[in-house]
């Protein structure tokens, strides 16, 4: 598999504190990589090292196949765009002037300015200065900034933090569009897992500076169990039927039970009816990415 970025034993120490502890991460080309972790887990530190804003203490990484020790790293970085924490924009300039400044930095003409502003939905902001933008608008301007270089790889650090529901949808749609229409590989760090699960094709879970697991969305779907909740008049009768069917289950109370294995509802209900067990309620729930993550890191508080 071709990786846009891969790291090996990446470490970052601040005196005695280990912010990153031997991180191995692999972002496949074309993926939307969800970088999941709690606040302070080390997501931003990792991103700052990859983007060159901060320096690693140990380990190595490759960006577009270029080693971090290579003098070619700067040119590999020119294929990358990023928004680290808060968007880095000129607050006393308009959206258009901001993008023009970035065009100057990249030595590009201004022909792309209108297209980029339209893409992020800021084409009609006119003479409004960036300092008067809403949080969502600033976030989108930050993304627009990173798109000027026509990047193949986009790194977004908490892009939906603090956004209202409408803003979240807009950013999500924008990212999907960038990934599907332009083929841009995206790494998004976030702790808003519900939102991330709507976008990501791959995941990396980080906790206390350590990489806990890397998985594809398919693997997560497989692992996240589908649970059927049953409320009956007598779970002892239900237990007999489930045993007979070879199902994986758990009796919760005299009337409630959870079934973890895949079942077809009609035969189960018919068998329960034959056994004299009355089914009062059946509901199905998918284990969320959130609960999967919590289980993975071993609880809410460590």
């Amino acid at each position, binding site marked *: 598999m071709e990786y846009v970025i891969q790291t090996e034993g990446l470490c970052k120490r601040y005196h005695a504190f280990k912010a990153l502890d031997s991180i191995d991460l692999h972002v496949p080309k074309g993926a939307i990589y969800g970088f999941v972790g709690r606040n302070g887990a080390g997501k931003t530190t990792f991103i700052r090292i990859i*983007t060159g*804003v901060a320096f690693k203490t140990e380990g190595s990484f490759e960006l577009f196949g270029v080693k971090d020790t290579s003098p070619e790293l700067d040119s590999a970085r020119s294929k990358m765009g990023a928004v*680290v924490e808060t968007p880095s924009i000129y607050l006393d300039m308009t959206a258009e002037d901001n993008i023009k400044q970035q065009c*100057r930095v990249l030595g590009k003409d201004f022909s792309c300015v209108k297209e980029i502003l339209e893409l992020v939905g800021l084409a009609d902001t006119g003479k409004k200065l960036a300092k008067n933008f809403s949080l969502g608008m600033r976030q989108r301007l930050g993304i627009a900034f990173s798109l000027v270089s026509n990047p193949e790889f986009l790194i977004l650090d908490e892009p939906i933090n603090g956004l209202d529901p409408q803003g979240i949808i807009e950013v999500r749609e924008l990212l999907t569009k960038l990934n599907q229409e332009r083929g841009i590989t995206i790494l998004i760090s976030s702790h808003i897992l519900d939102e991330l699960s709507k976008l990501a094709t791959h995941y990396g879970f980080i906790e206390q500076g350590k990489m806990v697991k890397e998985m594809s969305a398919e693997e997560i779907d497989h692992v996240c169990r589908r649970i059927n909740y049953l409320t009956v008049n007598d779970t002892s009768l239900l237990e007999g039927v489930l045993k007979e069917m070879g199902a994986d289950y758990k009796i919760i109370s005299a009337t409630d039970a959870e079934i973890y294995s895949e079942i077809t509802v009609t035969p189960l209900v018919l068998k329960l009816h034959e056994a004299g067990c009355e089914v009062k309620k059946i509901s199905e729930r998918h284990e969320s990415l959130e609960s999967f993550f919590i289980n993975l890191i071993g609880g809410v508080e460590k």
Partner: protein
Amino acid sequence: MKRLISEGMAKARNAKRFWICTWILIGLSLLQVLLNYAVEKQSSALDSNVDVSSVIFGMLGNQSLFMAIVPAMFVVRDFTQNTVRNKIICGHSRTKIYFAHLICFDAVALFYHIVATLSSLIFGLAILGGADSLAHGYVAYYCVHSVLLILAYASMTMFICMLIRGVSGAIIAYVINTLLSTFGMIAMLALNGHDKLVDLITCAVLDMQTSLLLEGITSPGEYPNSFMRVAMPLFALAYIIALPIIGVRIFKQTDLK
């Protein structure tokens, strides 16, 4: 680096405060000429000798303040608004970023110096007269020296702004210049009698060099002495060359926000 310089210069050109400061400098130049004119009128009976040479570099004493306020804002803003990240992320090396900042800083500082000197010259000639007072061979020397001083101030302010990476950096740069001058004076008093050491201190402190330059232009050939005439520009050059080298080395190892 050309791209970074173009970006920096565009930022300066489009900033209101850049043009406001230009007009303030012109206004202050006129004011100092008028003040000198008033002083001359008051003390004409005492045979005062106020002419254009008294004011031509008169604004140089305020340059370190202007330099700390305005060009530093373009540099400091890159750190406070974190826009410097955008340059690093898209593949510009830190060495190029530092030098691009410094070149923009130098350009703006020189622009202010030229504006102040030309305004003082024009207003001075028109109001005070005395064009012949500038007709000596030292004027070219003082012009070159003043440019070196401006570049040395710029290197120092840039260096401190890069270290502090906040608005306070520009103010601290100004305060450091003043403090160096104060400590220099104390050291000179303590070393009274050791002429060479006193001269070296005068050369090492930019504000003291500025004072000497301002004195020298009105009494060419007498002061500073020939040793100082060589040593002062060399010390200014040392600032211009050494501080960016140290600054880049530090910047290349610094984690940014």
